[in-house]
Protein backbone atom coordinates (compact mmCIF):
# COMPACT_ATOMS: atom_id res chain seq x y z
CA UNK A 1 0.00 0.00 0.00
CA UNK A 2 1.39 3.32 -1.02
CA UNK A 3 0.48 6.24 1.12
CA UNK A 4 -0.54 9.48 -0.52
CA UNK A 5 2.73 10.96 0.72
CA UNK A 6 4.71 8.29 -1.12
CA UNK A 7 2.64 8.78 -4.21
CA UNK A 8 3.39 12.48 -4.24
CA UNK A 9 7.06 11.65 -3.89
CA UNK A 10 6.92 9.28 -6.86
CA UNK A 11 5.10 11.86 -8.89
CA UNK A 12 7.80 14.39 -8.12
CA UNK A 13 10.59 11.97 -9.04
CA UNK A 14 8.82 11.14 -12.25
CA UNK A 15 8.43 14.81 -13.06
CA UNK A 16 12.08 15.50 -12.36
CA UNK A 17 13.19 12.63 -14.49
CA UNK A 18 10.96 13.48 -17.43
CA UNK A 19 11.48 17.21 -17.36
CA UNK A 20 15.24 16.73 -17.30
CA UNK A 21 15.10 14.43 -20.27
CA UNK A 22 12.73 16.67 -22.14
CA UNK A 23 15.08 19.57 -21.52
CA UNK A 24 18.00 17.62 -22.98
CA UNK A 25 15.82 16.77 -25.95
CA UNK A 26 15.00 20.45 -26.46
CA UNK A 27 18.66 21.42 -26.21
CA UNK A 28 19.62 18.84 -28.82
CA UNK A 29 16.88 20.10 -31.09
CA UNK A 30 18.28 23.61 -30.68
CA UNK A 31 21.82 22.46 -31.48
CA UNK A 32 20.63 20.57 -34.53
CA UNK A 33 18.66 23.57 -35.75
CA UNK A 34 21.75 25.71 -35.26
CA UNK A 35 23.66 23.28 -37.49
CA UNK A 36 21.08 23.66 -40.23
CA UNK A 37 21.21 27.44 -39.99
CA UNK A 38 25.01 27.39 -39.97
CA UNK A 39 24.94 25.56 -43.31
CA UNK A 40 22.34 27.84 -44.83
CA UNK A 41 24.06 31.11 -43.96
CA UNK A 42 27.04 30.61 -46.30
CA UNK A 43 24.79 29.38 -49.09
CA UNK A 44 22.56 32.43 -48.96
CA UNK A 45 25.52 34.72 -48.42
CA UNK A 46 27.18 33.38 -51.56
CA UNK A 47 24.01 33.66 -53.64
CA UNK A 48 23.21 37.15 -52.39
CA UNK A 49 26.75 38.47 -52.82
CA UNK A 50 27.14 36.98 -56.28
CA UNK A 51 23.90 38.51 -57.50
CA UNK A 52 24.35 41.82 -55.68
CA UNK A 53 27.87 42.37 -56.97
CA UNK A 54 27.52 40.60 -60.27
CA UNK A 55 24.26 41.84 -61.74
CA UNK A 56 25.38 45.50 -62.15
CA UNK A 57 28.32 44.28 -64.24
CA UNK A 58 26.08 42.58 -66.76
CA UNK A 59 25.88 44.73 -69.85
CA UNK A 60 25.65 43.74 -73.48
CA UNK A 61 29.25 44.75 -73.94
CA UNK A 62 30.41 42.73 -70.93
CA UNK A 63 28.68 39.60 -72.16
CA UNK A 64 29.91 39.75 -75.74
CA UNK A 65 33.27 41.54 -75.89
CA UNK A 66 36.69 39.98 -75.39
CA UNK A 67 38.57 41.18 -72.30
CA UNK A 68 40.29 44.58 -72.57
CA UNK A 69 43.73 45.52 -71.32
CA UNK A 70 44.53 44.19 -67.86
CA UNK A 71 43.18 46.47 -65.15
CA UNK A 72 41.39 48.80 -67.55
CA UNK A 73 37.99 47.47 -66.62
CA UNK A 74 37.03 47.45 -70.27
CA UNK A 75 35.92 44.54 -72.36
CA UNK A 76 34.05 41.53 -71.15
CA UNK A 77 33.80 37.82 -70.92
CA UNK A 78 32.54 36.91 -74.37
CA UNK A 79 35.25 34.33 -75.11
CA UNK A 80 34.83 32.80 -71.67
CA UNK A 81 31.10 32.23 -72.17
CA UNK A 82 31.73 30.89 -75.65
CA UNK A 83 34.53 28.65 -74.39
CA UNK A 84 32.45 27.25 -71.55
CA UNK A 85 29.61 26.37 -73.93
CA UNK A 86 31.95 24.77 -76.47
CA UNK A 87 33.82 22.80 -73.87
CA UNK A 88 30.60 21.54 -72.28
CA UNK A 89 29.40 20.43 -75.71
CA UNK A 90 32.64 18.73 -76.64
CA UNK A 91 33.09 16.88 -73.37
CA UNK A 92 29.46 15.76 -73.47
CA UNK A 93 30.02 14.42 -76.97
CA UNK A 94 32.87 12.28 -75.66
CA UNK A 95 31.64 11.53 -72.17
CA UNK A 96 27.92 10.88 -72.57
CA UNK A 97 27.97 8.02 -75.13
CA UNK A 98 30.77 6.18 -73.35
CA UNK A 99 29.09 6.79 -70.00
CA UNK A 100 25.77 5.44 -71.26
CA UNK A 101 27.45 2.39 -72.75
CA UNK A 102 29.26 1.76 -69.46
CA UNK A 103 25.96 2.13 -67.64
CA UNK A 104 24.36 -0.39 -70.01
CA UNK A 105 27.27 -2.72 -69.40
CA UNK A 106 26.94 -2.42 -65.63
CA UNK A 107 23.20 -2.97 -65.58
CA UNK A 108 22.77 -5.58 -68.36
CA UNK A 109 26.04 -7.49 -68.24
CA UNK A 110 27.53 -6.41 -64.93
CA UNK A 111 26.17 -9.20 -62.78
CA UNK A 112 29.49 -10.98 -62.45
CA UNK A 113 32.91 -10.50 -60.96
CA UNK A 114 34.22 -8.28 -63.76
CA UNK A 115 31.10 -6.13 -63.61
CA UNK A 116 31.45 -5.67 -59.87
CA UNK A 117 35.06 -4.67 -60.37
CA UNK A 118 34.13 -2.07 -62.96
CA UNK A 119 31.38 -0.77 -60.69
CA UNK A 120 33.77 -0.44 -57.78
CA UNK A 121 36.46 1.31 -59.80
CA UNK A 122 33.85 3.53 -61.38
CA UNK A 123 32.71 4.64 -57.93
CA UNK A 124 36.28 5.31 -56.86
CA UNK A 125 36.94 7.12 -60.15
CA UNK A 126 34.07 9.47 -59.32
CA UNK A 127 36.04 10.67 -56.31
CA UNK A 128 39.37 11.25 -58.05
CA UNK A 129 40.70 14.75 -57.40
CA UNK A 130 39.88 16.71 -60.53
CA UNK A 131 43.31 18.29 -60.61
CA UNK A 132 44.88 14.85 -61.02
CA UNK A 133 42.58 14.22 -63.97
CA UNK A 134 43.84 17.52 -65.36
CA UNK A 135 47.45 16.39 -65.00
CA UNK A 136 46.57 13.16 -66.79
CA UNK A 137 44.98 14.99 -69.71
CA UNK A 138 48.02 17.26 -69.82
CA UNK A 139 50.41 14.32 -70.01
CA UNK A 140 48.31 12.39 -72.49
CA UNK A 141 47.31 15.15 -74.90
CA UNK A 142 49.06 18.46 -74.24
CA UNK A 143 52.56 16.99 -73.97
CA UNK A 144 51.94 14.74 -76.93
CA UNK A 145 50.61 17.43 -79.26
CA UNK A 146 52.88 20.09 -77.86
CA UNK A 147 50.26 22.76 -77.21
CA UNK A 148 47.33 23.53 -74.96
CA UNK A 149 44.05 22.85 -76.66
CA UNK A 150 40.31 22.62 -76.31
CA UNK A 151 40.62 18.90 -77.00
CA UNK A 152 42.68 18.32 -73.90
CA UNK A 153 40.19 20.24 -71.76
CA UNK A 154 37.21 18.43 -73.23
CA UNK A 155 38.93 15.09 -72.66
CA UNK A 156 39.65 15.95 -69.02
CA UNK A 157 36.08 17.05 -68.38
CA UNK A 158 34.68 14.00 -70.18
CA UNK A 159 36.58 11.85 -67.68
CA UNK A 160 34.86 13.72 -64.85
CA UNK A 161 31.45 13.18 -66.49
CA UNK A 162 31.98 9.54 -67.36
CA UNK A 163 31.59 7.87 -63.95
CA UNK A 164 28.60 10.06 -63.01
CA UNK A 165 26.77 9.29 -66.26
CA UNK A 166 27.67 5.58 -66.03
CA UNK A 167 26.37 5.21 -62.50
CA UNK A 168 23.15 7.17 -62.99
CA UNK A 169 22.45 5.29 -66.23
CA UNK A 170 22.93 2.00 -64.43
CA UNK A 171 20.59 3.02 -61.64
CA UNK A 172 17.86 4.17 -63.98
CA UNK A 173 18.14 1.07 -66.17
CA UNK A 174 17.84 -1.11 -63.09
CA UNK A 175 14.58 0.59 -62.24
CA UNK A 176 13.00 -0.53 -65.52
CA UNK A 177 10.90 -3.61 -64.66
CA UNK A 178 12.12 -6.97 -65.91
CA UNK A 179 8.73 -7.55 -67.56
CA UNK A 180 9.59 -4.89 -70.17
CA UNK A 181 12.60 -6.90 -71.21
CA UNK A 182 10.62 -10.13 -71.16
CA UNK A 183 7.99 -8.56 -73.37
CA UNK A 184 10.72 -7.68 -75.85
CA UNK A 185 12.12 -11.21 -75.76
CA UNK A 186 8.65 -12.62 -76.25
CA UNK A 187 8.35 -10.54 -79.39
CA UNK A 188 11.58 -12.12 -80.59
CA UNK A 189 13.53 -8.87 -80.59
CA UNK A 190 17.27 -8.79 -80.48
CA UNK A 191 18.80 -7.74 -77.24
CA UNK A 192 20.31 -4.54 -78.51
CA UNK A 193 16.93 -3.54 -79.89
CA UNK A 194 15.34 -4.32 -76.53
CA UNK A 195 17.96 -2.29 -74.71
CA UNK A 196 17.95 0.72 -76.99
CA UNK A 197 14.30 0.88 -78.00
CA UNK A 198 12.54 -0.34 -74.86
CA UNK A 199 14.77 -0.14 -71.80
CA UNK A 200 16.55 3.10 -72.63
CA UNK A 201 13.38 4.92 -73.55
CA UNK A 202 11.73 3.76 -70.34
CA UNK A 203 14.72 5.03 -68.36
CA UNK A 204 15.00 8.27 -70.32
CA UNK A 205 14.16 10.77 -67.62
CA UNK A 206 16.52 9.26 -65.06
CA UNK A 207 19.37 9.22 -67.53
CA UNK A 208 18.69 12.77 -68.59
CA UNK A 209 18.88 13.82 -64.97
CA UNK A 210 22.25 12.15 -64.58
CA UNK A 211 23.60 13.74 -67.73
CA UNK A 212 22.43 17.21 -66.74
CA UNK A 213 23.85 16.84 -63.25
CA UNK A 214 27.15 15.83 -64.80
CA UNK A 215 27.01 18.84 -67.14
CA UNK A 216 26.34 21.16 -64.20
CA UNK A 217 29.22 19.61 -62.39
CA UNK A 218 31.77 20.04 -65.19
CA UNK A 219 30.72 23.56 -66.08
CA UNK A 220 32.14 24.73 -62.76
CA UNK A 221 35.35 22.74 -62.87
CA UNK A 222 38.45 24.90 -62.89
CA UNK A 223 41.44 22.87 -61.82
CA UNK A 224 41.67 20.53 -64.84
CA UNK A 225 41.22 23.47 -67.20
CA UNK A 226 44.28 25.27 -65.88
CA UNK A 227 46.57 22.68 -67.37
CA UNK A 228 44.58 21.84 -70.49
CA UNK A 229 42.84 24.78 -72.18
CA UNK A 230 45.03 27.30 -70.34
CA UNK A 231 42.81 30.34 -70.96
CA UNK A 232 42.98 33.00 -73.63
CA UNK A 233 41.46 36.34 -74.44
CA UNK A 234 40.51 35.47 -78.00
CA UNK A 235 37.33 34.07 -79.41
CA UNK A 236 37.19 30.50 -80.68
CA UNK A 237 39.90 29.79 -83.22
CA UNK A 238 39.86 26.03 -83.60
CA UNK A 239 39.76 23.06 -81.30
CA UNK A 240 43.54 22.81 -81.41
CA UNK A 241 44.22 26.09 -79.68
CA UNK A 242 43.87 27.37 -76.11
CA UNK A 243 40.49 28.71 -75.10
CA UNK A 244 38.96 30.65 -72.25
CA UNK A 245 36.29 29.34 -69.88
CA UNK A 246 34.18 31.07 -67.24
CA UNK A 247 35.70 29.37 -64.17
CA UNK A 248 39.20 30.07 -65.48
CA UNK A 249 38.34 33.70 -66.14
CA UNK A 250 36.89 34.07 -62.62
CA UNK A 251 40.06 32.65 -61.15
CA UNK A 252 42.35 34.93 -63.19
CA UNK A 253 40.24 38.00 -62.41
CA UNK A 254 40.17 37.25 -58.70
CA UNK A 255 43.96 37.27 -58.59
CA UNK A 256 44.27 40.74 -60.17
CA UNK A 257 44.71 43.62 -57.75
CA UNK A 258 42.24 45.99 -59.46
CA UNK A 259 38.74 46.91 -58.35
CA UNK A 260 37.56 46.68 -61.94
CA UNK A 261 38.83 43.11 -62.16
CA UNK A 262 36.95 42.28 -59.00
CA UNK A 263 33.74 43.66 -60.47
CA UNK A 264 34.27 41.66 -63.63
CA UNK A 265 34.97 38.59 -61.53
CA UNK A 266 31.60 38.94 -59.83
CA UNK A 267 30.00 39.50 -63.22
CA UNK A 268 31.48 36.29 -64.59
CA UNK A 269 30.47 34.47 -61.39
CA UNK A 270 26.85 35.51 -61.77
CA UNK A 271 26.75 34.15 -65.33
CA UNK A 272 28.31 30.86 -64.23
CA UNK A 273 26.06 30.45 -61.22
CA UNK A 274 22.95 31.20 -63.27
CA UNK A 275 23.93 28.44 -65.72
CA UNK A 276 24.64 25.92 -62.98
CA UNK A 277 21.71 26.76 -60.71
CA UNK A 278 19.31 26.71 -63.65
CA UNK A 279 20.39 23.18 -64.54
CA UNK A 280 20.37 21.98 -60.95
CA UNK A 281 17.09 23.48 -59.84
CA UNK A 282 15.44 22.65 -63.15
CA UNK A 283 16.46 19.02 -62.97
CA UNK A 284 15.44 18.64 -59.36
CA UNK A 285 12.09 20.33 -59.88
CA UNK A 286 11.36 18.27 -62.99
CA UNK A 287 12.41 15.07 -61.33
CA UNK A 288 10.67 15.71 -58.03
CA UNK A 289 7.43 16.28 -59.91
CA UNK A 290 7.86 13.33 -62.21
CA UNK A 291 8.93 10.78 -59.64
CA UNK A 292 7.64 11.32 -56.15
CA UNK A 293 9.54 8.40 -54.68
CA UNK A 294 12.79 9.68 -56.06
CA UNK A 295 15.42 7.18 -55.06
CA UNK A 296 17.44 8.49 -58.01
CA UNK A 297 17.04 11.86 -56.50
CA UNK A 298 18.70 10.88 -53.26
CA UNK A 299 21.37 9.02 -55.15
CA UNK A 300 22.22 12.11 -57.13
CA UNK A 301 22.68 14.02 -53.96
CA UNK A 302 25.78 12.10 -53.07
CA UNK A 303 27.19 12.19 -56.56
CA UNK A 304 27.64 15.89 -57.10
CA UNK A 305 29.93 18.50 -55.72
CA UNK A 306 31.67 21.73 -56.52
Amino acid at each position, binding site marked *: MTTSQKRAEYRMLFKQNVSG*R*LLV*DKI*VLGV*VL*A*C*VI*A*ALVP*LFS*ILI*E*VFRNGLPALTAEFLTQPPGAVGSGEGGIGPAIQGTLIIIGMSSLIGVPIGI*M*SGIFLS*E*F*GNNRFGR*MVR*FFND*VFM*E*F*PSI*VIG*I*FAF*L*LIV*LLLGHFSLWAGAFALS*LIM*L*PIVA*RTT*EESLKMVPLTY*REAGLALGL*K*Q*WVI*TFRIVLSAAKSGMLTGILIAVARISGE*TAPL*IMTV*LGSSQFFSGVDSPMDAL*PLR*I*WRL*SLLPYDSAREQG*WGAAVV*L*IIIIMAIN*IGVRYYFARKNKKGSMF*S*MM*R*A*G*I*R*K
Partner: protein
Amino acid sequence: MASLLQAKSRRFPADKIFKIAATAAGVYILLIIGLMVFHLFSESYPIWEEEGLSFVTGSEWNAVEGREVFGAAPYILGTLVTAGLAMAIGVPLSIGIAMFISQAPKYLSGPLSMVVDLLAAIPSVIYGLWGLFVFRDIFLNWIEYPLHEAFGDSVWLFSSAPFGLDIFSASVILAIMIIPTISAVSREIMIAVPQMQKEAAYMLGATKWEMFKLSIFPYAKTGLIGAAILGLGRAVGETMAVTMLIGNATGPSAFPQTLFQPGQTMSSIIANEFIEASPASLHLPALIGIGIILLLVAIGINVVAHVLVSRMMKVKEGVINA
Protein backbone atom coordinates in the same frame (compact mmCIF):
# COMPACT_ATOMS: atom_id res chain seq x y z
CA MET B 1 17.56 -9.91 -64.43
CA ALA B 2 20.58 -9.75 -66.62
CA SER B 3 21.24 -13.48 -66.67
CA LEU B 4 18.03 -14.10 -68.55
CA LEU B 5 19.20 -11.82 -71.31
CA GLN B 6 22.75 -13.07 -71.19
CA ALA B 7 21.62 -16.59 -72.03
CA LYS B 8 19.85 -15.32 -75.11
CA SER B 9 22.60 -13.06 -76.32
CA ARG B 10 24.40 -15.75 -78.29
CA ARG B 11 21.61 -16.08 -80.79
CA PHE B 12 22.34 -12.99 -82.84
CA PRO B 13 25.70 -11.75 -84.08
CA ALA B 14 24.42 -8.18 -83.67
CA ASP B 15 23.92 -8.88 -79.99
CA LYS B 16 27.45 -10.13 -79.73
CA ILE B 17 28.69 -6.83 -81.11
CA PHE B 18 26.40 -5.00 -78.72
CA LYS B 19 27.76 -6.92 -75.77
CA ILE B 20 31.34 -6.32 -76.89
CA ALA B 21 30.68 -2.60 -77.26
CA ALA B 22 29.14 -2.38 -73.81
CA THR B 23 31.99 -4.36 -72.28
CA ALA B 24 34.47 -2.14 -74.09
CA ALA B 25 32.94 0.88 -72.37
CA GLY B 26 33.41 -0.88 -69.05
CA VAL B 27 36.98 -1.73 -69.95
CA TYR B 28 37.55 1.91 -70.94
CA ILE B 29 36.98 2.97 -67.33
CA LEU B 30 39.53 0.48 -66.03
CA LEU B 31 41.91 1.38 -68.84
CA ILE B 32 41.75 5.09 -68.06
CA ILE B 33 42.43 4.49 -64.38
CA GLY B 34 45.32 2.17 -65.20
CA LEU B 35 46.76 4.60 -67.74
CA MET B 36 46.43 7.43 -65.26
CA VAL B 37 48.40 5.65 -62.56
CA PHE B 38 50.97 4.47 -65.09
CA HIS B 39 51.45 7.88 -66.70
CA LEU B 40 51.73 9.69 -63.41
CA PHE B 41 54.33 7.21 -62.23
CA SER B 42 56.36 7.19 -65.42
CA GLU B 43 56.32 10.98 -65.84
CA SER B 44 57.27 11.59 -62.24
CA TYR B 45 59.97 8.93 -62.34
CA PRO B 46 62.88 11.41 -62.61
CA ILE B 47 61.98 12.99 -59.30
CA TRP B 48 61.80 9.65 -57.50
CA GLU B 49 65.14 8.73 -59.02
CA GLU B 50 66.69 12.06 -58.04
CA GLU B 51 65.24 12.59 -54.60
CA GLY B 52 64.13 9.13 -53.59
CA LEU B 53 62.28 9.03 -50.32
CA SER B 54 63.47 12.50 -49.38
CA PHE B 55 60.90 13.79 -51.86
CA VAL B 56 58.25 12.80 -49.37
CA THR B 57 60.13 13.81 -46.24
CA GLY B 58 62.06 16.90 -47.41
CA SER B 59 60.84 20.45 -47.03
CA GLU B 60 63.01 22.51 -49.37
CA TRP B 61 61.36 23.65 -52.59
CA ASN B 62 63.53 25.38 -55.15
CA ALA B 63 62.88 25.31 -58.88
CA VAL B 64 65.83 27.52 -59.85
CA GLU B 65 68.00 25.70 -62.32
CA GLY B 66 71.17 24.29 -60.83
CA ARG B 67 69.81 24.49 -57.29
CA GLU B 68 66.83 22.27 -57.71
CA VAL B 69 65.57 20.70 -54.51
CA PHE B 70 62.09 19.34 -54.12
CA GLY B 71 60.54 18.14 -50.91
CA ALA B 72 56.80 17.67 -50.62
CA ALA B 73 56.45 17.19 -46.87
CA PRO B 74 54.97 20.64 -46.06
CA TYR B 75 52.28 20.23 -48.70
CA ILE B 76 51.37 16.70 -47.65
CA LEU B 77 51.13 17.92 -44.09
CA GLY B 78 49.21 21.01 -45.20
CA THR B 79 46.67 18.83 -46.96
CA LEU B 80 46.23 16.63 -43.92
CA VAL B 81 45.93 19.58 -41.53
CA THR B 82 43.40 21.54 -43.60
CA ALA B 83 41.36 18.42 -44.34
CA GLY B 84 41.51 17.38 -40.69
CA LEU B 85 40.38 20.81 -39.48
CA ALA B 86 37.63 20.84 -42.08
CA MET B 87 36.47 17.47 -40.77
CA ALA B 88 36.53 18.68 -37.18
CA ILE B 89 34.23 21.56 -38.13
CA GLY B 90 32.20 19.92 -40.88
CA VAL B 91 31.38 16.48 -39.49
CA PRO B 92 29.44 17.54 -36.36
CA LEU B 93 27.55 20.13 -38.39
CA SER B 94 26.70 17.59 -41.09
CA ILE B 95 25.56 14.96 -38.61
CA GLY B 96 23.36 17.59 -36.99
CA ILE B 97 21.85 18.51 -40.34
CA ALA B 98 21.30 14.85 -41.18
CA MET B 99 19.59 14.31 -37.82
CA PHE B 100 17.26 17.19 -38.45
CA ILE B 101 16.43 16.28 -42.03
CA SER B 102 15.92 12.59 -41.27
CA GLN B 103 13.35 13.45 -38.58
CA ALA B 104 11.73 16.54 -40.04
CA PRO B 105 8.26 16.34 -41.61
CA LYS B 106 8.18 15.87 -45.38
CA TYR B 107 7.32 19.46 -46.24
CA LEU B 108 10.50 20.58 -44.45
CA SER B 109 12.93 17.78 -45.19
CA GLY B 110 12.49 17.84 -48.98
CA PRO B 111 13.18 21.51 -49.61
CA LEU B 112 15.81 21.62 -46.89
CA SER B 113 17.88 18.77 -48.26
CA MET B 114 17.57 20.31 -51.71
CA VAL B 115 18.87 23.62 -50.39
CA VAL B 116 21.79 21.95 -48.65
CA ASP B 117 22.51 20.12 -51.90
CA LEU B 118 22.80 23.43 -53.66
CA LEU B 119 25.88 24.02 -51.52
CA ALA B 120 27.45 21.16 -53.47
CA ALA B 121 26.39 22.63 -56.79
CA ILE B 122 28.26 25.90 -56.28
CA PRO B 123 31.58 25.68 -58.12
CA SER B 124 34.75 25.66 -56.11
CA VAL B 125 36.01 28.80 -57.83
CA ILE B 126 32.96 30.77 -56.67
CA TYR B 127 33.59 29.60 -53.11
CA GLY B 128 37.07 31.00 -53.62
CA LEU B 129 35.80 34.32 -54.95
CA TRP B 130 33.32 34.67 -52.11
CA GLY B 131 36.01 33.60 -49.67
CA LEU B 132 38.45 36.21 -50.93
CA PHE B 133 36.13 39.18 -51.05
CA VAL B 134 33.38 38.52 -48.48
CA PHE B 135 34.20 35.75 -46.07
CA ARG B 136 37.79 36.81 -45.47
CA ASP B 137 36.93 40.22 -44.01
CA ILE B 138 34.21 38.90 -41.76
CA PHE B 139 36.25 35.96 -40.60
CA LEU B 140 39.33 38.08 -39.96
CA ASN B 141 37.54 40.71 -37.91
CA TRP B 142 35.07 38.57 -36.02
CA ILE B 143 36.92 35.35 -35.41
CA GLU B 144 40.63 35.51 -36.07
CA TYR B 145 41.46 38.81 -34.33
CA PRO B 146 39.44 38.02 -31.21
CA LEU B 147 41.01 34.56 -30.99
CA HIS B 148 44.47 36.02 -31.46
CA GLU B 149 43.89 38.68 -28.83
CA ALA B 150 42.43 36.25 -26.34
CA PHE B 151 44.79 33.32 -26.73
CA GLY B 152 47.67 34.62 -28.85
CA ASP B 153 50.16 34.70 -25.97
CA SER B 154 49.28 31.42 -24.34
CA VAL B 155 48.17 29.00 -27.08
CA TRP B 156 50.71 28.47 -29.85
CA LEU B 157 47.93 27.66 -32.32
CA PHE B 158 46.80 31.28 -32.33
CA SER B 159 50.19 32.94 -31.95
CA SER B 160 51.05 34.43 -35.35
CA ALA B 161 49.33 37.57 -36.59
CA PRO B 162 46.10 36.81 -38.45
CA PHE B 163 45.94 37.74 -42.10
CA GLY B 164 42.81 36.13 -43.43
CA LEU B 165 44.58 34.11 -46.10
CA ASP B 166 45.69 31.23 -43.97
CA ILE B 167 45.23 27.63 -42.98
CA PHE B 168 42.29 28.43 -40.71
CA SER B 169 40.17 30.26 -43.26
CA ALA B 170 40.92 27.67 -45.96
CA SER B 171 39.84 24.93 -43.58
CA VAL B 172 36.58 26.67 -42.75
CA ILE B 173 35.73 27.09 -46.45
CA LEU B 174 36.61 23.45 -46.95
CA ALA B 175 34.31 22.49 -44.08
CA ILE B 176 31.42 24.33 -45.75
CA MET B 177 32.18 22.54 -49.00
CA ILE B 178 32.09 19.02 -47.54
CA ILE B 179 28.88 19.53 -45.54
CA PRO B 180 26.52 18.50 -48.38
CA THR B 181 28.40 15.24 -49.04
CA ILE B 182 28.55 14.11 -45.45
CA SER B 183 25.05 15.23 -44.53
CA ALA B 184 23.44 13.62 -47.59
CA VAL B 185 25.13 10.27 -47.02
CA SER B 186 24.51 10.29 -43.25
CA ARG B 187 20.88 11.19 -43.82
CA GLU B 188 20.43 8.19 -46.13
CA ILE B 189 22.13 6.00 -43.56
CA MET B 190 19.94 7.23 -40.72
CA ILE B 191 16.83 6.61 -42.80
CA ALA B 192 18.08 3.09 -43.59
CA VAL B 193 17.99 2.12 -39.90
CA PRO B 194 15.05 -0.31 -39.58
CA GLN B 195 11.86 1.36 -38.43
CA MET B 196 11.38 -1.34 -35.78
CA GLN B 197 14.53 -0.25 -33.99
CA LYS B 198 13.28 3.29 -33.74
CA GLU B 199 9.83 2.17 -32.63
CA ALA B 200 11.34 -0.06 -29.99
CA ALA B 201 13.17 2.92 -28.54
CA TYR B 202 10.03 5.05 -28.58
CA MET B 203 8.14 2.21 -26.92
CA LEU B 204 10.53 2.32 -24.00
CA GLY B 205 9.51 5.92 -23.56
CA ALA B 206 12.56 7.46 -25.18
CA THR B 207 12.59 11.08 -26.29
CA LYS B 208 13.74 11.83 -29.81
CA TRP B 209 17.33 12.38 -28.73
CA GLU B 210 17.29 9.18 -26.68
CA MET B 211 15.92 7.36 -29.69
CA PHE B 212 18.95 8.56 -31.67
CA LYS B 213 21.25 7.49 -28.87
CA LEU B 214 19.60 4.10 -28.36
CA SER B 215 18.75 2.94 -31.82
CA ILE B 216 20.23 5.04 -34.62
CA PHE B 217 23.79 5.80 -33.59
CA PRO B 218 24.79 2.27 -32.51
CA TYR B 219 23.24 0.78 -35.63
CA ALA B 220 24.55 3.38 -38.06
CA LYS B 221 28.02 3.92 -36.58
CA THR B 222 29.98 2.28 -39.39
CA GLY B 223 27.99 4.05 -42.04
CA LEU B 224 28.37 7.44 -40.39
CA ILE B 225 32.12 6.96 -40.11
CA GLY B 226 32.13 6.00 -43.78
CA ALA B 227 30.21 9.15 -44.65
CA ALA B 228 32.73 11.25 -42.77
CA ILE B 229 35.64 9.56 -44.53
CA LEU B 230 33.92 10.19 -47.85
CA GLY B 231 33.90 13.87 -46.93
CA LEU B 232 37.58 13.61 -46.07
CA GLY B 233 38.24 12.22 -49.55
CA ARG B 234 36.60 15.24 -51.08
CA ALA B 235 38.40 17.66 -48.78
CA VAL B 236 41.75 16.19 -49.74
CA GLY B 237 41.21 16.67 -53.46
CA GLU B 238 39.57 20.08 -53.31
CA THR B 239 41.60 22.62 -55.23
CA MET B 240 40.40 26.05 -56.27
CA ALA B 241 38.84 27.49 -53.11
CA VAL B 242 41.79 26.30 -51.06
CA THR B 243 44.31 27.68 -53.55
CA MET B 244 42.63 31.06 -53.39
CA LEU B 245 42.46 31.23 -49.60
CA ILE B 246 45.41 29.40 -48.13
CA GLY B 247 47.98 32.10 -48.80
CA ASN B 248 50.40 29.94 -50.79
CA ALA B 249 53.61 29.65 -48.86
CA THR B 250 56.35 27.43 -50.24
CA GLY B 251 59.34 25.65 -48.77
CA PRO B 252 59.85 25.14 -45.03
CA SER B 253 57.61 28.11 -44.21
CA ALA B 254 54.67 26.17 -45.62
CA PHE B 255 54.88 23.77 -42.70
CA PRO B 256 51.67 24.28 -40.77
CA GLN B 257 52.70 25.69 -37.41
CA THR B 258 49.92 28.01 -36.37
CA LEU B 259 46.37 28.43 -37.62
CA PHE B 260 46.92 31.98 -38.82
CA GLN B 261 49.83 31.28 -41.07
CA PRO B 262 49.79 30.87 -44.85
CA GLY B 263 50.16 27.28 -45.94
CA GLN B 264 49.94 25.14 -49.04
CA THR B 265 48.26 21.88 -49.93
CA MET B 266 49.18 19.28 -52.51
CA SER B 267 46.43 20.37 -54.86
CA SER B 268 47.10 24.08 -54.40
CA ILE B 269 50.79 23.86 -55.23
CA ILE B 270 49.94 21.94 -58.40
CA ALA B 271 47.36 24.56 -59.38
CA ASN B 272 49.78 27.39 -58.63
CA GLU B 273 52.93 26.13 -60.28
CA PHE B 274 51.93 23.65 -62.95
CA ILE B 275 51.79 26.09 -65.84
CA GLU B 276 55.11 27.74 -65.02
CA ALA B 277 56.91 24.43 -64.56
CA SER B 278 59.18 23.57 -67.46
CA PRO B 279 58.89 19.98 -68.70
CA ALA B 280 62.64 19.85 -69.23
CA SER B 281 63.55 20.42 -65.59
CA LEU B 282 62.67 18.46 -62.50
CA HIS B 283 59.96 20.93 -61.55
CA LEU B 284 57.23 19.27 -63.62
CA PRO B 285 58.09 15.73 -62.48
CA ALA B 286 58.04 17.01 -58.90
CA LEU B 287 54.53 18.41 -59.32
CA ILE B 288 53.39 15.21 -61.02
CA GLY B 289 54.97 13.31 -58.12
CA ILE B 290 52.80 15.34 -55.75
CA GLY B 291 49.87 14.52 -58.01
CA ILE B 292 50.42 10.81 -57.62
CA ILE B 293 50.74 11.09 -53.85
CA LEU B 294 47.46 13.00 -53.87
CA LEU B 295 45.82 10.38 -56.08
CA LEU B 296 46.98 7.51 -53.89
CA VAL B 297 45.79 9.26 -50.73
CA ALA B 298 42.41 9.97 -52.34
CA ILE B 299 42.01 6.41 -53.61
CA GLY B 300 42.93 4.97 -50.21
CA ILE B 301 40.47 7.20 -48.37
CA ASN B 302 37.66 6.52 -50.82
CA VAL B 303 38.11 2.77 -50.85
CA VAL B 304 37.82 2.71 -47.06
CA ALA B 305 34.75 4.98 -47.18
CA HIS B 306 33.12 2.81 -49.82
CA VAL B 307 33.62 -0.36 -47.88
CA LEU B 308 32.17 1.19 -44.72
CA VAL B 309 29.19 2.83 -46.40
CA SER B 310 28.28 -0.12 -48.59
CA ARG B 311 28.49 -2.52 -45.67
CA MET B 312 25.92 -0.39 -43.90
CA MET B 313 23.80 0.12 -47.00
CA LYS B 314 23.65 -3.50 -48.19
CA VAL B 315 19.89 -3.39 -47.95
CA LYS B 316 19.59 -0.46 -50.28
CA GLU B 317 22.59 -1.11 -52.46
CA GLY B 318 22.85 1.31 -55.30
CA VAL B 319 20.66 3.91 -53.71
CA ILE B 320 23.63 5.65 -52.33
CA ASN B 321 26.05 6.54 -54.96
CA ALA B 322 28.77 7.40 -52.54
